[in-house]
Every structure is written in structure tokens, then in C-alpha cells.
């Protein structure tokens, strides 16, 4: 704040703790902001495209993440600068909305800022630049709609979807088995998609991973995989045509929620209480048996007494299954979650063709596969990989691919990648620029230049001559059209 002085030269204080506040204004402020935005973009630039490099990020508590997903990098970088934060949010919102292209959006924004700086130096009013950019982006979007291709797909015709997902995956670390992963992603999305409403609830796709094996072992399971095992080691490891009781009540005598106290003053009373408790266990198991359940999945635990009883009565059980997983199991098996033993009926049981416990390698880890479900509206993608970082990165890549597949189901038009769409837009914007009178024309032209940044970065990252490649592609495009 410029100090204000009164008639007698005494400064007076207008803003609280005036001296400690800083104020940056005018061209300097804009330049500082632009350089912050650009430096963020510069970090991500090398991650763009199939030949993009990965970044290794180490968090304060020593966790290491290796990724080339723009949103993840920026999230973990913990930037402090305000403008840089804006870029982070930009990338995050792209992640939320589209799921992919998080690097591209930041590189593009950085390049737009770079161009704007040049215009500012020439004395063009910033708002005019902004308006020009807005005009140009409208032109570009219109052009994109013109060059977009629509394709048909169906339950059995997924080739085009797979191809598009492969483009996404090719820039990731997992690109060596992109075909397989893309197929898995597309199948998973189609399994849960509501094609009529064009709605895909990604919550119904569970992405889980376990260290070990290799990436090629990644599989899609039409059902649910939970990281749990049978409650008793002697229970059967495989159940055919399971009828599953899904419970949210514990295997123990019910307790009233209100505070209570049982006065026991005689040995007889104690005996009855004990008997009653045993009776409860017996009843509960009997009820499950009565309705025909062959497997019990419980949200809560049960003590050894109940466990023994279940084992004894030959009723396999799984305990401590989380709420979200329970819900997915219920959806997949078409069962209902039962909050109370009294409510258990045969209709509420879920059906699964095969439930099996699978152990991995030499470790004692076991997981429970619930497969061949009645209703395959919930699926699991189970990722295997050499180490934890690899699995995390694969999860992120699969997420991107899932999002791409979802977007295609919503709107089945595509444009071609490899920077070709950007170049086409750049040409269109450049051509349109001349039609605008006024200062905006410069801004529009700058926008066209900025669009070139994406193919440039792609070429650069692939070790090609950026300028030569770009101009070759551009001339080719103009020649063809």
C-alpha cells in the first residue's frame, strides 16, 4: 500500500498492520503471476505423451510415488505459490471431470500464459487479451466439434472403445500391456454402465491390487474380491453355488443401546444367563441354516465361541468386511443387507456361482473371490505387479482409462490424438484471427501459437526435432484439407 500522508507529512495507517502487508500491482504483478504459472507447466511438460518421463515424488514421511499423471504430481508437490495453486486446481478439476488429460491442460495453460506475457509487453490491455483468448477458445471448440468422429459401439463391439483407452494408457508406465488393460477397463465400464441413461457409476468398479506376480496377471473379475479369509482355517476353501447371507449385525447376543445392568445374585440366574447366551448363538446359526445360507458375510466380528459353532455346524463365514465392500457384494450377488437375524429370509440371500479363497505365492495372504454372480453390476479389477509403487501407478492409469471409457459412453465422439487435434485447431484459429478487428486479433493469434505447445512438447519428449516436426505436420494438414 502506498503510504498516505496528511498535510503535515505524518503517515497515517489505513490498513491493519500496514507495514507487514505487501502489495504488488500493475505489470509487475502480472509478470510474477505468469512466471509462477509457467514454472509449474514447465515441470509437467516433460511428462506429456507416450514418451513422457515419470516423476518420482517423495513425501515428508518417506512415501515414494512414481507417476506421470499430472494431477497426482501437482497434488504431491505441495505448491505454495498462489498462482501455482490455481494450476494445481485446474489439473484437479480436469481429473474430476474428465479423468484424463491432466498434464495436457496444465501445459496448455502454461503456454497460453507464456504467449500472454509477450502481448503484455507490447502494451496490450490484459482484459483484451483475456477476451481474445475466450473468443479463440470458442472457435477452437467449434472446430473440434466439426472434426470429431462419432462411432458406434455395443456390448459386443468394443474395439473402438478399447482403441481409445489404449491411447490413454500408452502414456503411462503400464504401456507394455496396454491392450490387455484397456480391454479390462472397457469391459468393466460396460458391465456397470447404464447404457440407456448413459450413466456410469464408477463406485461400482472396485480397483484393488496386491504386490506380487506380474502386470500381465491383472484380471477382471465379474464379482468382488475382498482381502479377507474364512474365519476358521478348517472351513471349506471353495463353495459352489453359494447362497450368501449378508449381515450387518454381530454374531453375539444383542445388546440394548440404552444403558443397562443385569443383576445376578444367585448361581441359578447366572446359569440361565449363560444358557441363554448359548441359546442365542445356536439360534443365530440355525436361522442362517434354515433359510439355506451356505456362506455368511458379516460386517462385525464374532468371538471364538461363535466361530467354533459355525465351524461345527458347517457354515463358512467371513468376518470384519467393510461397509463399502459389503454393499458391493450385495449389489453383485443381488442379495440384501440384513440388519437383524429375525429378518433373514431366503429371498434376501445373495447368489454367487463360485466363492473361493485364493492364496498368493509363498505368502500366507489369502483373498476371497466371489465370482459368477447373479447380477454382475459390480466388478473388480485386480491388479498384480512387482512392487507397491507400480500397483499404485497402475491404479491411477486404470482410473484414467475407466474415465475415458465412461466419457465415451456418455458422448461417443472422438478426435484424433498425437497433437493432431491441437494442430487442426491452431490452423482454424489462426485463419479465423484475421476476421476480427481490434486488439483481440493479436490475442487470438497468440492462442493459435499456444496450441502448438502440445505437439511441440510431444515431439520434444520423443526426441524429435520439435519445430521441424510441427511444421511438417502442419503443412501436411493444410495440404490435405
Amino acid at each position, binding site marked *: *500500500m*502506498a503510504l*498516505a500522508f*496528511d*498535510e*503535515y507529512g505524518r503517515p*497515517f*495507517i*489505513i*490498513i*491493519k498492520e500496514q507495514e507487514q502487508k505487501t502489495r504488488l500491482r500493475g505489470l509487475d*504483478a502480472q509478470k510474477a*503471476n505468469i512466471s509462477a504459472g509457467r514454472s509449474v507447466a514447465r515441470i509437467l511438460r516433460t511428462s506429456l505423451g507416450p514418451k513422457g518421463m515419470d516423476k518420482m515424488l517423495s513425501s515428508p514421511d518417506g512415501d515414494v510415488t512414481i507417476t506421470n499423471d499430472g494431477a497426482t504430481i501437482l497434488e504431491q508437490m505441495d505448491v505454495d505459490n*498462489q498462482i501455482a*495453486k*490455481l494450476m494445481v*486446481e*485446474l489439473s*484437479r*478439476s*480436469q481429473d*474430476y*471431470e474428465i479423468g484424463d488429460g491432466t498434464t495436457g491442460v496444465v501445459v496448455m495453460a502454461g503456454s497460453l500464459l507464456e504467449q500472454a506475457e509477450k502481448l503484455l509487453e507490447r502494451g496490450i*490491455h490484459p*482484459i483484451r487479451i483475456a*477476451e481474445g483468448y*475466450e473468443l479463440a477458445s470458442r472457435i477452437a471448440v467449434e472446430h473440434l466439434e466439426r472434426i470429431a468422429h462419432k462411432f458406434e459401439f455395443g456390448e459386443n463391439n468394443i474395439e473402438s472403445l478399447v482403441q481409445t483407452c489404449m491411447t490413454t494408457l500408452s502414456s503411462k508406465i503400464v504401456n507394455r500391456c496396454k491392450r490387455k488393460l484397456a480391454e479390462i477397463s472397457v469391459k468393466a465400464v460396460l458391465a456397470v454402465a447404464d447404457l440407456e*441413461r448413459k*450413466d456410469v*457409476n464408477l*463406485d461400482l468398479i472396485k480397483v484393488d491390487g496386491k504386490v506380487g506376480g506380474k502386470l500381465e496377471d491383472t484380471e477382471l473379475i465379474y464379482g468382488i474380491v475382498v482381502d479377507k479369509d474364512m474365519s476358521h482355517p478348517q472351513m471349506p476353501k471353495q463353495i459352489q453355488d453359494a447362497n450368501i447371507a449378508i449381515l*450387518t449385525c454381530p454374531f453375539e*447376543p*444383542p445388546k*440394548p*443401546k*440404552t*444403558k*443397562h*445392568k*443385569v*443383576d445376578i*445374585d444367585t448361581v441359578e*440366574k447366572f446359569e*440361565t*444367563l449363560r444358557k*441363554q447366551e448359548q441359546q442365542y448363538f445356536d439360534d443365530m446359526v440355525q436361522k442362517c441354516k434354515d433359510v439355506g445360507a451356505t456362506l455368511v458375510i458379516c*460386517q462385525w466380528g464374532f468371538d471364538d465361541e461363535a466361530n467354533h459353532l459355525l465351524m461345527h455346524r458347517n457354515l463358512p463365514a467371513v468376518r470384519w468386511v467393510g*461397509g*463399502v465392500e*459389503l*454393499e*458391493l457384494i*450385495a*449389489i453383485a450377488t443381488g442379495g*440384501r*443387507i440384513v*440388519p*437383524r437375524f429375525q429378518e433373514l429370509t431366503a429371498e*434376501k440371500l445373495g447368489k454367487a456361482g463360485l466363492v473361493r479363497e485364493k492364496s498368493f505365492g509363498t505368502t500366507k495372504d489369502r483373498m476371497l473371490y466371489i465370482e459368477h454372480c447373479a447380477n454382475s453390476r459390480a466388478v473388480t479389477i485386480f491388479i498384480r505387479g512387482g512392487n507397491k509403487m507400480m500397483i499404485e501407478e497402475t491404479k491411477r492409469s486404470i482410473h484414467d482409462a475407466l474415465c475415458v471409457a465412461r466419457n465415451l459412453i456418455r458422448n461417443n465422439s472422438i478426435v484424433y490424438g498425437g497433437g493432431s487435434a491441437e494442430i487442426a485447431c491452431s490452423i482454424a484459429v489462426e485463419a479465423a484471427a484475421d476476421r476480427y478487428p481490434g486488439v483481440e486479433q493479436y490475442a487470438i493469434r497468440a492462442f493459435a501459437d499456444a496450441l502448438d505447445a502440445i505437439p511441440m512438447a510431444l515431439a520434444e519428449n520423443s526426441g524429435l526435432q520439435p519445430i521441424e516436426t510441427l511444421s511438417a505436420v502442419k503443412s501436411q494438414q493444410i495440404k490435405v484439407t
Partner: protein
Amino acid sequence: MASMMQPQIILLKEGTDTSQGKAQLVSNINACTAVADVVRTTLGPRGMDKLIHDANGSVTISNDGATIMKLLDIVHPAAKILVDIAKSQDSEVGDGTTTVVLLAAEFLREAKPFIEDGVHPQNLIRSYRIACNLAIDKVKGLATSIEGKSLEEKKSLLSKCAQTTLNSKLIGGEKEFFATMVVNAVIAIGTDDRLNMIGIKKVPGGNMRDSFLVDGVAFKKTFSYAGFEQQPKKFLNPKILLLNIELELKSEKENAEIRLSDPSQYQSIVDAEWNIIYEKLDKCVQSGAKVVLSRLAIGDLATQYFADRDIFCAGRVAEEDLQRVAAATGGTVQTTVNNVIDEVLGTCEVFEEKQVGNERFNIFSGCPSGRTATIVLRGGADQFIEEAERSLHDAIMIVRRALKNSTVVAGGGAIDMEISRYLRQHARSISGKSQLFINSYAKALEIIPRQLCDNAGFDATDVLNKLRQKHAHASGEGAPYGVDINTGGIADSFANFVWEPAINAINAATEAACLVLSVDETVKNPKSESAQGDAAMMGGRGRGGAMRGGRGRGMRRR
């Protein structure tokens, strides 16, 4: 200077800062102008935004005068008046906060030379008040009524008003899109005074164009328990039950304790508890409602119970969202599930859970009473959406004012120029000092077009002279001419649809200016913190000396 010899009479607590007299007045004026300088550049469609970064690390990007002033954390007592008028303009009118601050500061700046020359402030105040009344009458005379037009015409007129407001904001590029949205929302809630019936929901992601208007209510999916995904997610013409009770298995009384002497009674207590909740749930189902919303928690038991019966439920719905649903669907919020009759159930055409960005939203559309609307804003970054929300708020306020007052005037500085001309003309008919003051008041009004030009990078003097020439036409046909920010010339604002509702910042600005002018003494008590006591005392003494000198000089001159 004889008083210097006498022992000092201590009237106020030591450290108290007093300043008075003309010097004080002038310094107040200076402070106000300094504050106005901060927001000066935000005026108009080519105004720049300010990025304010506070101690907590949160960032606000805004060009809304009131927001900036609020965040500046101003402590100067006189300058605070400006903050207050900006705030009151914001809550009263909703827009024009920058204008009001600029005008007030300009009135003061014009008054300063007169004060320095020894004019009594009360004289100035009186003249300013007269000028203000004249100006307001003139505005009323110039206003064009939109009363009696058909709904379609009204809509397009209102949307022009909204566009003028949005012009100066970050979302100016999409002003037509948002203006239509705002107008539809305002018309939806009708003439009711309940502005909270327009909900604005912010979802990061996508771009501005993905924003949409729901002719009903939309809110984010609430926290849900297992079983929620098994509930149906779409209903046509559902009955909606609104509750304000918990549907959860819980202890009925916090401080109650059950004593059992016979273990066999145990089961009956447990059953009793379950029965209470089952009874409640059963009543909800009995009512025929397909959607159950509650302000309090709906537990996992209830979620699964409803899922079993194909009913959708959502617990912990925010109070205002629930109120909005109640208003939109015609239902009433119940505090019990007993006696739920059909009249208290709401309904709407379509209820649906939809994916918006990364969130799932519950959307009630096609509501019978149609007295609510929800705008779902999308945009790249949080700050961006925040600013968009503020801009839409301004636009909504303006449209509402225009709808109520049903009159509009030309914007782009045209109205200010016209009043200025009128006041100058009027001043000539006054004999006495007042003529000067009203003239300077008229001159101050020109700050609006001048600043518009400055911000757009045009030659203000050139444009202003063109405007003066136009407005000086005796026929009055030049009245609607204002600054054309596209070409740097002048244009008929009215024909270009740069419209403002016929309420003006002039009154508020004059009030504030008069208030500052009428103050000639400030007494500032020392800070209570002892740490600053020393500094304050030192300063106090030092200032005391200077003060006396100042006052002395002031007296001599008079």
C-alpha cells in the same frame, strides 16, 4: 501560544490519540481517497481483478468492490466508513459497490480544496444534499419503465440488465449464457423476498458452459451407509417425505438405565428398542413416500430397510437445502413420523441422482410450486467458481431490483454524465457559494465515465469531452450516450443495451461523503495491550505536541 506555559490539563487517559480540526478533516479525506485508489481499477467491463492472499493462505480473486474492501482489513476510522457503505450497497442493491466507493471518494476530493480554503463543512454538506436530491429526481425522470410488457419482453430486458452487471466480471465472456440463467432463476422464485430460495452449488471441474439451472433443488449426495447403492436412483412423480428426526437405532434416553433382575427379560428389552425404530420406519413407508429426506442422520438400518422397499433416502441434508426442497415440492418438514398425511408430502416431476463432475447430485426438477431454483456452477478452479458465484449474486440482485422497480436507465456512465450536466445547469441559477459546491459535485460525478475510460486504456479527456458535447444538446437526445468500451469512443448506451436498474449509488455515496465531512475530531483510545502501551504513549506525547501546533495554525487562519 500562551497556553503552552500553563500546566497541561489531563483530560483523557494517557496515550489517547486525539486529533481535531481542519487538519483532521483533510487527513480523513486523504485516507478515503487512498482506499478508493485500491478499488479504482476494478470498475467497469475492462476493470482488473485483485488477488488477495490472506494470512491463512486462502486466496480470493475478485473484482467485487465490497469483497475487496472487506478483505483489506481497514482500520482507519474514516476509511472504514467507505467499507461500510460498500457493504451496505452490497446487501441493499447487490451491485455497484465499486461505484459507490469511487463516488464518495470523489465527492470528498472535490470538497478538499474548499475545506482547505476555510469553507465551513456544513455549507458543503448542505449543498451536497441538495445536489443529491436533484440528482435522484433527475434519475427518476430519465428512467424507462418496463412495466406492462409481456413476460418474453421482460425477460429479454432483464437479461440485458444482468448482462451489464456481468460485463465487468470474470465471467463476462459468457454473459449471455449466465444472464439468461439468472433471469430464469429470478423469475422462478417470483416476487418473493426470499433470496435463499435460489441455491448456488459449486462443483469444480468442467468449464463455465457446463453450468446449468435446475428448476427445483439440487444438492450433493449426503453421507450414506451400506445399502444406499441398492436404492433406486430415479423416480417419476415421487412423494417426498421431509423429516427432522433421526432414523437410527439408538438409546432412547441418554440418562436412563435399565436394571434387569431376570436374564430372560433381556430379549424383551432388545425387542422393544428394535420395535421403536421399526415402527418409525414402517410409518415412513406407510405414508407412501418414495423419497425420504432428513436433516438428521439416517442410519444403516434405515438405509437398508428403505432399500428393501425401493425407497430413496438421504440423511444429514443441510438445513437450507431441506427448506428449499420443502418450498419447491410443497411439502412440510415433519418432526415426527406419526400422522403423516398426504398434505405434508411434497412431490416433483422427476427425482434423480446424477453425476456432476466428481460428485453425485440429488436433483429434484419440475417442482409444482416452482418457487425455487438452483444454479450449479462449474469451472476450472475453486477461486474461479467463488468469483463466479459472487458475480451471479450481483446479477441476481440487480435483476430482482429491476423486476421490483420496473425501471431501467442507461449505463456506461451515461446517467452520470447526464446528471452532471443537469446539475451544472442548475448551479448557474443559484446565487451564492452553493453554486460552486454544486458545480464541484457535478464534476465529481464525471469520475465514473472517466474511470471507465482509464481502465479500458482510452484517453479519458478526449472521450469525456465528446460525451459532454453530446449531453449538452438541448434536445436531450444525447442523454443516453455513454462510454463505448469496445471502440474507445462514445455510443448510445440505451441502444446498446447497457442498462442499469434505476437505483443509484449516488445517494449512498453522498451520505458517506457528508458523514466524513461532518467529522472534525477523532478520539482514539490507546490499545489495551500493555506491550503496545509504551509505543502508544511515546507516540501520544509526540503527537500531542504536533497536534497543538496544528490546532494553533488552524485557528490563526480562521
